[in-house]
């Protein structure tokens, strides 16, 4: 298991290297002079030159890349041009809300999808199964921003149960913090719930067709036990992959929901950085999200090993 972990982790290093180069070149490839942007169009050329020097923009490119990487290794991603704080601090401040939203969203999606998908597989072809198929189709195709607005109208404007938008830290104010997160989680999570329901249904169906399920049935194991104790673990591999991907894209792509509900998360930090050409923030955020993404992939790989003993033991084949 240890060598397996090491091998999976080692495979990520080249990816990280390539991404870091691409991310770094973004700032250099994009039009516009950062120093000019900071000082504004009215600034004197001499001042701009001075700032360029102090920002290190006149150094050769490879030198700047190595500098940036070696700082990044130590957790120093530079200083934002506009926020007046280190990029890492900015990411730290904005990552909390995004993480909370992502966790709530994925929990909601799982609570819906795993039972529904499993039962749809069990009663395949039934009215229930067809109902699930309809739900997943709507869930997948309905634009999440439209859903957000509908939910706001229903729950906030008409029923007045939940706030329209905004954010409270759930750790200092759990009740209100949660209330603020519910609508964004519902509107974001529906599409993932639909996606995971389909994956669960398909892979459980696949497993139910296999002979070992038949074999267990021939020994008198009940249908429910077959489904939840025997089949679900085998069906777990594709499901976990889907959950990992969903969670990763939630962390990096909740931009729309964050704008609609006015949540100060990573998405809004990224959008603002792009609008203001705040390259250090831009580069830092993208690099950070890449690491998160790769980390989640690694986690999924390791979970494979936990679920499936064959993955774990490829190193030491016992005959």
């Amino acid at each position, binding site marked *: 298991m240890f060598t397996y972990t090491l091998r999976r982790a080692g495979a990520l290093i080249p990816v990280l290297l390539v991404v870091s180069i691409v991310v770094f070149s973004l700032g250099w490839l994009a039009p516009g002079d950062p120093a000019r942007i900071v000082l504004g169009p009215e600034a004197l050329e001499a001042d701009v030159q001075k700032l360029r020097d102090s920002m290190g923009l006149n150094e050769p490119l490879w030198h700047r890349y190595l500098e940036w990487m070696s700082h990044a290794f130590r957790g120093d991603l530079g200083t934002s041009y506009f926020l007046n704080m280190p990029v890492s601090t900015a990411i730290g401040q904005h990552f909390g809300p995004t993480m909370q939203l992502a966790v709530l969203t994925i929990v909601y999606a799982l609570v819906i999808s795993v039972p529904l998908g499993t039962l749809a597989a069990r009663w395949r072809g039934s009215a229930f199964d067809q109902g699930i198929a309809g739900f997943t189709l709507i869930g997948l195709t309905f634009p999440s921003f439209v859903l957000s607005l509908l939910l706001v109208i229903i729950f906030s404007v008409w029923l007045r149960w939940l706030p329209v938008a905004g954010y409270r830290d759930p750790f200092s104010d759990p009740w209100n913090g949660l209330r603020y997160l519910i609508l964004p989680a519902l509107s974001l999570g529906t599409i993932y719930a639909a996606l995971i329901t389909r994956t669960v249904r398909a892979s459980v169906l696949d497993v139910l067709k296999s*002979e070992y399920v038949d*074999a267990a049935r021939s020994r008198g194991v009940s249908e429910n036990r077959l489904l939840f104790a025997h089949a679900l673990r085998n069906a777990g591999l594709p499901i976990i992959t889907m959950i990992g991907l969903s969670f990763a894209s939630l962390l990096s792509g909740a931009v729309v929901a964050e704008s609609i509900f006015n949540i100060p998360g990573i998405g809004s930090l990224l959008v603002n950085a792009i609008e203001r050409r705040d390259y250090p923030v831009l580069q830092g955020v993208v690099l950070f999200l890449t690491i998160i993404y790769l980390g989640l992939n690694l986690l999924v790989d390791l979970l494979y090993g936990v679920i499936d003993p064959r993955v774990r033991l490829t190193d030491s084949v016992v005959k």
Partner: protein
Amino acid sequence: MTMPLVIENLNISFGQGAIEAVRDVSLELRPGEILALVGESGSGKSLTARSALKMFPEGAIVDGRINLTGENVLAASPKNLERIRGKAAAMVFQEPSTALNPVFTIGWQIGEGLRAHGMGDMRKRRARAIELLREVGIPDPETRVDYYPHQLSGGQKQRVVIAMALALRPAVIIADEPTTALDVTVQAGILNLLRRCRDEIGTSILIITHNLGVVAELADRVAVMYQGRIVEEASSAALFASPQAEYTRRLLAAVPRLGEGTPKEDATNREGLVLETNQLEITYPGRFGRTLVHAIRGVSFDIAAGEVLGLVGESGSGKSTIGRAVVGLSPVTGGAMRLFGTDLRHVKGERLRELRRRVGFIFQDPASSFNRFMTVFDCIAEPLRVHRALSSASAVKSRVLELLDQVQLPRDMSGRYPGELSGGQRQRVGLARALALNPEFIVADEPTSALDVSIQAKVLDLFKSLQKELGFAALFISHDLAVVEEISHRVGVLRHGELLELGSAREVMSTPHHDYTRLLINSVPVPDPAIQASKRADVQSMLSLGVPS
């Protein structure tokens, strides 16, 4: 005395009666009896046997009566079915590696059957699982109970499946081709275990098989199925001595028998050698701390022009690796392998292509060795096109039609897709494809092991007559001694990557030098109950002594 299992007038059909898979079958399994249900694929034998536990595929329309230890199975409620399954009758499956769930330990899986029948205590279940594993001859059961299926060999897995079937001491065991996926020496052990279930526990056994040797070895009575009907039912001795039904006679005639292959004149001279190996080594590299795999160790043999060399071995013996090395699909890592005088270790690119052109390859499974989206015509024409052997499209066309004639397939089959053909027809197409470029040498890797015996007999006949007519040399790889004997001039026996014996087919079969060869020959069940009974003690003692290497 109540019969453990009585099937009366069973009919099973699919698609609103469009396909009648089982027609009016009546069977009776007596207490303490081993009844064999014999037939080819599609004869309805598995459907009939599985119906005893009401295990039907989706969409089956069933009619008839099934009485299992006094319970009406077809009318049983789901709750009652769960009670009957495993307790009144239990099943043993064909492929032990798919009948076991790969992500749970075998102990847990044995325990699940016990749990379903009311053994709530986890420690008790575990103790019982260990007991059962010991009973079926798994060494060191206290440790192995926590093994996952992939940590066991094929034979051990089948023993575990049998242990699960025995768990609740059912009155009936239904064994669906329990040894088809296993090597012959392993098969002998499993058949012996099944017999012990009957002798020591008194279980009645319904065994489904297409292998008449297995029938002769094990069964008291035999029912022969053909196209959904039972065409003959008789005691094992009577059936083999004087088969009544026309189909049974044909089936018995089709079985290749050891020691009955016609002696082949060895007209080949050893001048023109097609293939020569000298101390051949094939090693697969280990990655990241994995150990090297020595697939082939120091194997030397040669094949002369026009000669058929049969390679026999059990799974993992390296026989396929050698076949694949000939066409450059496995790397030669030591020694020499010369094809038409050229050492394969130093050949690349155009030269290798040129060599490959002179070699035809027939794969084991005709179902997976064709592109499903290419017509039969395109499949056969592909080597002609790849090697630009013929200049015009019309020449290709006439060559393909000629090949279809040679393998005795109707010409109008060229427009069909492989999925629309039967297994035997597909393997004929495989043969045609291998012959397309008029090869001097053909490598056939288990070409008939996926086929029924009667189909196998026809394909082998075809292969023999084509070999005689066209005079190609061949490396014929098989796990089936009788098949190899029938088709080859010389035979080599492989085990663990080493060539134990090499000689003329008659020599090896009649006077084997190596103990392993003798065990291999003796393990093959012969379709004759009298011979089987006298051989049994022999094989068991050899197996229990272990084979000296």
